[in-house]
């Protein structure tokens, strides 16, 4: 009998009916490679692993881009051309608030994914919303900082150091903004489509993205703000 042309779900049901204990597919010993695990010659890994791993590769390449901006800042840090030094434009209080907001936002994001794991739509949405609001607070503080600097005449054109500063911090800010848009669409998708397989995959990727932004911010607040501010 041929089952060609049946939908994949029927194919799976057929397999389970014909071979409920997977005797024909089971690994022969505990150490044997397992189908779907992506090991050896057992065929491709499951979609969930491939999606997460692919996004991990993207994130690492994104971090390489950030490292170029970090390198530019490190090289230009003393190129003030008579303009302000970093020590003069750091405001520790605002920096502490920004750091706290972003860290708590990362925490809320993770709690949201805990809710996703148990398929609780309400708490997923609540924590995603908290994540977004904290991220928005971070962005507003950063915009306030940029506007205040611009009002004092400290724009990216002023010196090489300021160019690198606005480039690096601004790039991170753009990432947070784009992440916020992504978060909004994820909330809509969770609401409309529910926890379908691909929606959960997207939530995994979003979590990775948001945590990676926090990791980059650790580098920024240490290297760009705190170290130059040491008296």
């Amino acid at each position, binding site marked *: 009998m041929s089952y060609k042309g049946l939908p994949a779900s029927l194919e799976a049901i057929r397999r389970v009916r014909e071979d409920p204990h997977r005797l024909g597919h089971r690994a022969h010993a505990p150490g044997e490679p*397992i189908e*779907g695990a992506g090991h050896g010659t057992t065929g491709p890994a499951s979609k969930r692993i491939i999606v997460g791993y692919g996004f*991990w590769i993207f994130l690492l390449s994104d971090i*390489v881009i950030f490292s170029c901006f970090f390198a530019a800042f490190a*090289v230009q840090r003393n190129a003030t051309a008579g303009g302000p030094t970093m020590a003069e434009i750091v405001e520790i209080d605002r920096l502490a608030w920004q750091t706290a907001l972003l*860290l708590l936002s990362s*925490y809320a994001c993770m709690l949201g994914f805990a809710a996703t794991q148990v398929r609780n739509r309400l708490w997923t949405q609540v924590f995603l919303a908290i994540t977004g609001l904290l991220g928005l607070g971070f962005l507003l503080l950063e915009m306030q900082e940029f506007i205040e600097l611009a009002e004092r005449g400290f724009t990216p054109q002023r010196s090489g150091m300021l160019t690198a500063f606005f480039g690096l911090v601004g790039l991170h800010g753009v990432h947070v903004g784009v992440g916020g848009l992504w978060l909004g669409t994820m909330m809509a998708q969770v609401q409309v489509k529910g926890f379908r397989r691909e929606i959960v995959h997207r939530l995994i990727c979003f979590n990775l993205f948001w945590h990676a932004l926090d*990791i980059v911010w650790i*580098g920024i607040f240490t290297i760009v703000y705190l170290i130059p501010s040491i008296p």
Partner: protein
Amino acid sequence: MSTSDSDPRLYENALEQTEDHAPGDEPPEEGSHWVRNANLGLGFSIVLTVAAFLLAGSDVIYEPAIPVALIVLAIAQMGVHLVFFLHITTGPDNTNNVLALAFGLLVVFVVVIGSVWIMSHLNQNMMPMDQLMKMQP
């Protein structure tokens, strides 16, 4: 959840041991496992962040060592984020993730340290600006 996937593991829960896991993912776990991880990550991060902010404005330790201490704290906090938020472990199911991370770090270090190194040497070897100006026609 969609049923449009004939992955046989859906019907088999005894064979989870050597499966790979993507970053940020775990073998099937209860919500409490994720919450515990998040709490630990937040706790460690707060301690390390507060330490960094306090150190930057104080003279508790030898002052020229403060930048190094801050960098150490930052790397420690990145490690905390990787372990508790991104779920990167040293287990065999994480080999691919760790290898990719190691390569990413290699590129990051080459770019950052290489740039700083080369540019500082260029700076030293550069003719002072006033002499350079005199050479202009």
